[in-house]
């Protein structure tokens, strides 16, 4: 069986650290599955995300061993463009992932980088904004939106790249209850479309939409049994 994401014996050590942050991670995620990874801060959850999404792959920041496969193909054999088209990541801090003067520019940013045709880009902006329900804010300045709305725009700016896999790296940490509910609804809708989702979470109340929860502890992934 080909998994959407398969991680094989992944080790990662940051250049300025002696100890490995990830000590042999094995993980298989099926297409259309929502997996949550929980754990205390400093246990490497974000590092794992960054490895899977290719940000830390072959980078100068550390030493990576093991293999990561997306739909059966190793990250090592994929070009950056292919990785970007395959996997999208929503980060925690809305202020450092939104940088455009208007919402529509923000959503257009990825497709513009991929040098898509103008009408394709416009179509993608329309679609992505409709999915997150922010059509009416097209020309707004992201600075003037609420935290929840900002994260929805961040999600839309990933959606417009039309990836198969989504990573939410504590994406709801700075969002209020209403915002969380709305983002969770969008995540469930993505699952219905067959997208694969990994959520990194602090907040146990966000785990209700997940299919499976794992805990990252001391650099290893374990089954979650209710405590960190």
């Amino acid at each position, binding site marked *: 069986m080909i998994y959407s994401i398969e991680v094989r014996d992944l080790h990662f050590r940051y250049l300025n650290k002696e100890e490995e942050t990830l000590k042999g991670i094995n993980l298989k995620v099926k297409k259309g599955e929502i997996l949550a990874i929980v*754990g*205390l*801060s*400093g246990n490497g959850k974000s590092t794992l995300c960054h490895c899977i999404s290719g940000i830390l792959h072959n980078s100068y920041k550390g030493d990576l061993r093991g293999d990561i496969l997306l739909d059966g193909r190793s990250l090592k054999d994929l070009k950056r463009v292919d990785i970007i088209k395959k996997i999208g990541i929503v980060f*925690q801090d809305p202020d450092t992932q939104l940088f455009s003067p208007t919402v529509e520019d923000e959503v257009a940013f990825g497709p513009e980088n991929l040098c898509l045709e103008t009408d394709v880009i416009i179509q993608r902006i329309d679609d992505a904004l409709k999915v997150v329900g922010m059509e009416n804010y097209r020309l707004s300045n992201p600075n003037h939106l*609420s*935290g*929840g709305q900002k994260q929805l725009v961040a999600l839309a700016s990933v959606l417009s790249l039309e990836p198969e896999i989504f990573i939410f790296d504590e994406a709801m*940490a*700075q*969002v*209020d*209850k*209403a*915002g969380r509910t709305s983002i969770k609804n969008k995540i469930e809708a993505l699952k219905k479309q067959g997208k694969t989702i990994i959520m990194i979470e*602090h907040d*146990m*109340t966000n785990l209700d939409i997940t299919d499976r929860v794992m805990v990252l502890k001391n650099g290893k992934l374990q089954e979650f049994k209710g405590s*960190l």
Partner: protein
Amino acid sequence: MENSKNLKEAYNEVILLGFIKLSNVCFGYKDNQDIIKNISLELFKEDFTAFTGPNGGGKTTLGKLMAGIFKPSRGDILIDGTNSKDLKLGAVGKKIGYLFQNPERQIFAPTVEEDITFSLIFKGVEKQQVTMKAQEMMEIFQLSHLRNQFPFTLSQGEKQRLALAGILINEPSFLILDEPTTGLDIERKGQLSSILKELSKRGVGMAVISHDDEFIQNLSTRIIDIVGGNVIADKRK
């Protein structure tokens, strides 16, 4: 609303002195609409008050008003009996400690120890006394092992404890914390809770702005709901 008013009145009879008193406070930036709309409130040192409500409802603005950082457009705020309009920030700091949502904004020095002590040194407090106080703070906030570290490489939880230590060395009698649990995991939230409980026990008044229900429920004795610049509920446990 009616109910909460009665409650408040009942409490006013029991505890007479509010540490922070807002009467008919309005606040807005320049010509824009008011963010805070005619709020009257009294906060007591004996309480552990939580302010909750959705993003953009005016919680942070209200916090900054209560800390004297913003001055009301209309109405008055009395902090420990003095009108906030007559209080300079430097003087407020002796009465109220304010923890910003982002602790990085209030960490100033190249080492943990210096960050805790520099404000006292500036004020000319005797060196020996400063060292002693710093020692005590570092112990309370579990920072002793980090005293020579560069503060910006600390974890989120440690940064926050450091910011708190730097504030509390001035011995304010009231603390206002803006979203203190952001970026903290369960374990560190627990640590923060127990520190805040301890401070509250020692007589430091507490007001926490947060949308973290569990954290609020666990700590507070009074919960005030702020929506759209108004107080829509004010309940005591």
